[in-house]
């Protein structure tokens, strides 16, 4: 019953209205005029540079040509071969960075979603301090990325950081002060920091989604004696499905492309365990001046993201249709 209400609203304005074009033949250019500024800026900032980037990926654009980059000789797909030759140093490093990024993305998206869902469900019903908590939870999201990550960088220092102070001095869990920004722990550091700033976004989206779930549905089922978990499984989760489809995709793309967190957290350190792929490509490009190879790596990354997104949308669409 409630589902139909939602889906009706869903389609409002999309299916009911006849196309405007036949009605106002003379004003056919009108929507294009409205779109022009957006198209223009998208072209200048996104599309043209992207095409240029693809072109660059077929060039031997090293420091010998950077001051006259149009003269860089074409090398066909050789940059791609180098990037994908996993037996050689460059490809191996890229592959490792890719693997790290995959693990990072899965963890961050999963935990952020779980935290966000838990908090949204808890704060759905009123209790004392609810609005204060909601405000608090949103602060890490509102904070500029670098401010939050710099704070974590300070906290994760070995000798002067708060984390080791908590673990070693306050809780006595370990005797030896671990390193968090170098070595294998760097992975867990970047995961925790990314979750810290990502989960409030999941919380925000889910909270917004929950507001459109009518209360009377819960009340009806509460009369039936349904437990909170059952309610969540059978009402909340299905109702949030459209939100979740978008939320998970957006989080996946943001997290996979995350540059700011490792850049601010590690600086020039670039520990192998925290070598996320955007950060890796940035360093490979700007520290070795091999812009052609860097562009090839970026194109590969884009292809991967397109592929995953395409599959994801196919699956979710098909399921939606079946449902």
């Amino acid at each position: 019953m409630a589902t139909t209400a939602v889906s009706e609203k869903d389609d409002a304005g999309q299916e009911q209205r006849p196309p405007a074009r036949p009605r106002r033949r003379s004003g056919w250019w009108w929507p294009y005029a409205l779109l022009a500024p957006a198209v223009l800026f998208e072209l200048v900032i996104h599309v043209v540079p992207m095409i240029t980037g693809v072109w660059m990926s077929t060039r031997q654009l090293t420091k010998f040509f950077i001051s006259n980059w149009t003269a860089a000789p074409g090398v066909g797909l050789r940059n791609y071969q180098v990037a994908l030759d996993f037996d050689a140093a460059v490809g191996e490093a890229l592959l490792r960075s890719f693997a790290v990024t995959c693990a990072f993305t899965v963890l961050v998206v999963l935990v952020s979603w779980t935290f966000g869902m838990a908090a949204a469900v808890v704060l759905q019903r009123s209790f004392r301090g609810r609005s204060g908590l909601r405000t608090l939870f949103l602060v890490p999201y509102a904070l500029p990325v670098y401010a939050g990550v710099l704070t974590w960088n300070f906290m994760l220092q070995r000798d002067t950081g708060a984390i080791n102070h908590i673990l070693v001095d306050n809780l006595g869990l370990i005797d030896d002060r671990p390193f968090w920004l170098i070595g294998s722990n760097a992975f867990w550091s970047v995961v925790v920091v990314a979750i810290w700033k990502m989960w409030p976004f999941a919380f925000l989206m889910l909270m917004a989604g929950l507001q459109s779930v009518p209360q009377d549905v819960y009340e009806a089922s509460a009369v039936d004696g349904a437990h909170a978990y059952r309610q969540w499984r059978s009402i909340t989760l299905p109702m949030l499905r459209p939100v979740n489809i978008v939320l998970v995709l957006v989080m996946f793309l943001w997290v996979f492309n995350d540059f700011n967190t490792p850049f601010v957290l590690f600086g020039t350190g670039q520990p192998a365990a925290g070598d996320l792929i955007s950060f890796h490509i940035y360093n490979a490009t700007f520290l070795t001046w091999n812009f052609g190879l860097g562009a090839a790596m970026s194109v590969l990354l884009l292809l991967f993201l397109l592929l995953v997104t395409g599959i994801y949308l196919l699956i979710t669409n098909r399921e939606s249709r079946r449902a």
Partner: protein
Amino acid sequence: MHDTTGFKAFRVVVVVVLGLFTVVPLYVMVGSSLKPLSDVRGAFTWWPTNLTVQPFIDMWSTVPLARYFLNSLIVSSAATIASVAIAIFAAYAVSRHRFRGRGVFTTTVLSTQMFPGVLFLLPLFVIFVNFTQTFGVQLIGTRLGLIITYLTFSLPFAIWMLAGYFDGIPRELDEAARVDGCSQLGALFRVVLPAARPGVIAVSIYAFMTAWGEVLFASVLTNDANRTLSIGLREYSTQINVYWNQVMAASLVVSVPVVIGFLLLQKQFVAGLTSGSVK
């Protein structure tokens, strides 16, 4: 309706765990900003030995923070205004018109969300250079270049969300306005926009926060003259020392405007999400 014991226990766990996770870094930021340098260089302590506001005074002279602040403010505000204005027109077209290329447009705009920034960083740079050589308008090392770049970062989200929002506003409203003699734009400005206020506020907040926090492009497109906070804050780590207390003080100060703005308008933001993207 009352909550079961199980739910209450769950609530306590969630509130405590997530509350601590959220609060500890914020506390460290505030606490450390009130410590003298000798305190932040030694082992961490929860309480400052000497409470001092000196870092908040020194931070302005260690790096030209005021200038970076002004740059960030101008760049972010201009990018926000431009982005939202452009998005309003585009979203109105997408929501109210069926035209050839509509699908291509929405798909392209949305898919720019997945572009890895590093892919178009250097090409964009080169395009800006060509622009300057052709037209003599300086884009690199000026605020204008940053504004143009940043306004597009929030554009896809803004168009998508506003289009969703406009879809929720009955067409009868604009049609009534048209009957009353309004032009298309008149209908947009007098009827649709006022009704979409939460959506506009929401995308404005989003655009401002995006610009205020951007790091990657700022690292290449800024210099002494137009440096923004995201890059400027790194300068507290100097040849002599890492001024952690001043870093924390500066982080706090640069966060305050966006955090307060966001928190004040969070209701509109959530409302915007609800009727825009989330529906």
